[in-house]
């Protein structure tokens, strides 16, 4: 489907500069907040306007823009876009009773602000789009990139997923039951038997094209499902495996989006039980937290694992060591309703 040549990630862990996943960064006040870099590459006059999501998205894109002669498109997935700016503007509306309002927050709050800013900073006039379908926002962006490459072979695309935690959005999601009421350590996320997960955020950006040479990894297949029906999910996984993974090929790692939410655990355990016996399982949401485009973090993680040729110990579910993985199957669901499978292979 497509090849990943560059991958950068700003997240609650040390994933951007000097990547180090051994040391686990913990939630602060029940949120896994991203470790933001200095954003040296973004002109101060531009940076000062950016909300967190736009900053992270732009920041993670900068190395790709610098390293790539010509981009043929910018394709972003985001669940909540610039929600912080959105509510800031909303608060102005209430505070000033619809009087004279400063428009900066409004302009930055549109979901496509990330893609737009990256386009402006790189003066890129080509294809530019933003997918916002919540737990499938990144997956649709990925499919879009695949289709663009089919249409325009030899092109290069910036593909990414980004979401931010804002105080305001945290309040809304919390009211909706998305997060745990109790404070926990990330280390204990999967041992809890309570509803909700930990709020997370991050930006994962990739340079993708149809050239195999020098690629870090290859995404071979992606499939999505809207359902709360376990049987439907199981059927989809079986079809996915039989269609895309030949009989003799081992799944070196099952990368699971298990989130610590006891309401959605059944989906993950069901998938694991359908895998070939002894398939190693690793989990990532104790690193990233839960957010709509967390699967983009997982794809970055898969790329990192392919490059390092091993999996950080704190991710493994069980005392298994995985060395030299070539085939990674990623399964994620968002709120037990939007499911996705992504197959990633080492180039």
């Amino acid at each position, binding site marked *: 489907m497509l090849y990943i040549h560059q991958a950068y990630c700003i997240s609650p862990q040390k994933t951007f500069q000097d990547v180090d996943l051994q040391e686990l960064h913990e939630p602060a006040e029940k949120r896994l907040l991203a470790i933001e870099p200095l954003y040296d590459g973004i002109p101060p006059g531009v940076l000062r306007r950016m909300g967190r999501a736009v900053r992270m998205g732009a920041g993670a894109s900068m190395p790709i823009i610098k390293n790539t002669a010509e981009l043929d498109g910018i394709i972003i997935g985001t669940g909540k876009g610039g929600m912080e700016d959105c509510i800031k503007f909303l608060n102005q509306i209430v505070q000033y009773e619809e009087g004279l309002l400063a428009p900066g927050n409004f302009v930055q709050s549109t979901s496509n602000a990330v893609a*737009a*800013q990256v386009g*402006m900073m790189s003066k890129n006039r080509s294809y530019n789009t933003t997918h*916002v379908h*919540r737990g499938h926002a990144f997956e*649709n962006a990925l499919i879009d990139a695949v*289709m663009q490459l089919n249409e325009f072979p030899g092109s290069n695309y910036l593909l990414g997923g980004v979401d931010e935690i804002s105080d305001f959005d945290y309040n809304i999601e919390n*009211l909706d039951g998305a997060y745990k009421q109790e404070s926990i350590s990330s280390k204990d996320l999967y041992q809890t038997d309570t509803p909700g997960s930990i709020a997370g955020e991050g930006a994962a950006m990739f340079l993708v094209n149809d050239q195999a040479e020098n690629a870090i990894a290859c995404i071979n297949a992606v499939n999505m499902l809207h359902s709360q029906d376990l049987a439907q999910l199981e059927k989809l996984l079986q079809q996915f495996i039989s269609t895309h993974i030949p009989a003799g090929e081992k799944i070196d790692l099952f990368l699971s989006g298990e989130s610590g939410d006891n309401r959605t655990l059944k989906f993950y355990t069901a998938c694991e039980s359908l895998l070939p016996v002894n398939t190693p399982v690793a989990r990532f949401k104790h690193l990233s937290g839960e957010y709509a485009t967390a699967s983009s973090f997982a794809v970055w993680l898969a790329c990192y694992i392919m490059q390092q040729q091993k999996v950080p110990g704190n991710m493994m579910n069980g005392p298994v060591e995985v060395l030299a993985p070539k085939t990674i199957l990623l399964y994620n669901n968002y709120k037990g309703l939007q499911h996705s499978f992504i197959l990633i292979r080492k180039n």
Partner: protein
Amino acid sequence: MGVISAVGNSVAENHKSLVEGLCGIRNEFDLFPTKYAELLPFGQVRISTADLLKKLHVTDPGVTRTSLLALHALNEMLQDAGLSPAALSSSETALAGASTVGGMCLTDELYADANKKTDGSPYTSSYDCASVNMYLQKHYKMNGIINTINTACSSSANSIMYGAMLMKNGFAKRAIVGGVDSLAKYTINGFNALHILSSEKCTPFDEDRKGLNLGEGAAFLLLEKEEDIAGKKVYAELTGFCNANDAYHPSSLSDEGDGPFLSMQGALKQAGLSAGQVSFINAHGTGTENNDEVESKAMLRLFEKVPAFASTKAYTGHTLGAAGAVEAVYSILSLIHQEVYPTLRFKKAIPSTGLVPVGSYKKMPVQHVMSNSFGFGGNCSSLIFSKV
């Protein structure tokens, strides 16, 4: 096709208004309390939210006006298409929708939930743009690829493109494409803060234009492949499309209109058409100083002789995320009926361009229609529909 807007609750009603020059922009806003109800004209759909709930038999909690408008238009489209429930639920049927407002039409509830002033309204999972298509997916038990795009004012033009691409690349056999937006205190105040709302009914492409009027609406179209249309009613062919970026400023277009020029040029290229073959352009034409002048300049750059063009936003107001889809329906109506609809209230051309849009309804040969939608962030999209 299915459409709902300030000029009608169905394709037939919209068509009648377009032909008869009946403008839907009024100073009678009554969706929610806002100080702008008296001050500004709006293209409000003529059904209250309560009546939409009744008409559509919706009893689920947490369904927003945006979702209801979408459901209304989608229902009309499904009836028009005669799509069976089995086909609708097939994993080969994609839904590519768009919205910029989503559930933020409930601005007051959003404020309360976001600032912890309540124990949680019924809408806590309905505020984002995706909530509309999540609702439609659930309502119709759809099993194909579902997507929502938000690229501001070009959103539903981009979903039409996305749906077509899904079909072209084997991800879907058919695609339901379109978009929706409803009027919201949030967008009213946002656009007003940018000083681009007019206190009068908008006059696109006019020298004295003062800004845009906000509208609301929804439209959905069913896209099918050529090999699947035998024996079916076919309105038009989507022959070309292109998205390009102006890359200049967050909320205004560059002087020379690079983004609009590139999207129009790209659509022509994909359609395999020369500029001279375009019969009519349904322009973005919002009525703002910036858009109309820049769009005109881009047309002058691309077309040796600018074809007949008009902006139907003079009828409906700017329906934001729905604009691309609503105007796609209008473009197709032009093809079906071989006629074009005017830019209402146009009086005098912009001095720097001298371009005069179609000023009154007329019958004329229409073979290829280009429809433009340009959004914040420099997002420029052009679609070309052709007569079958």
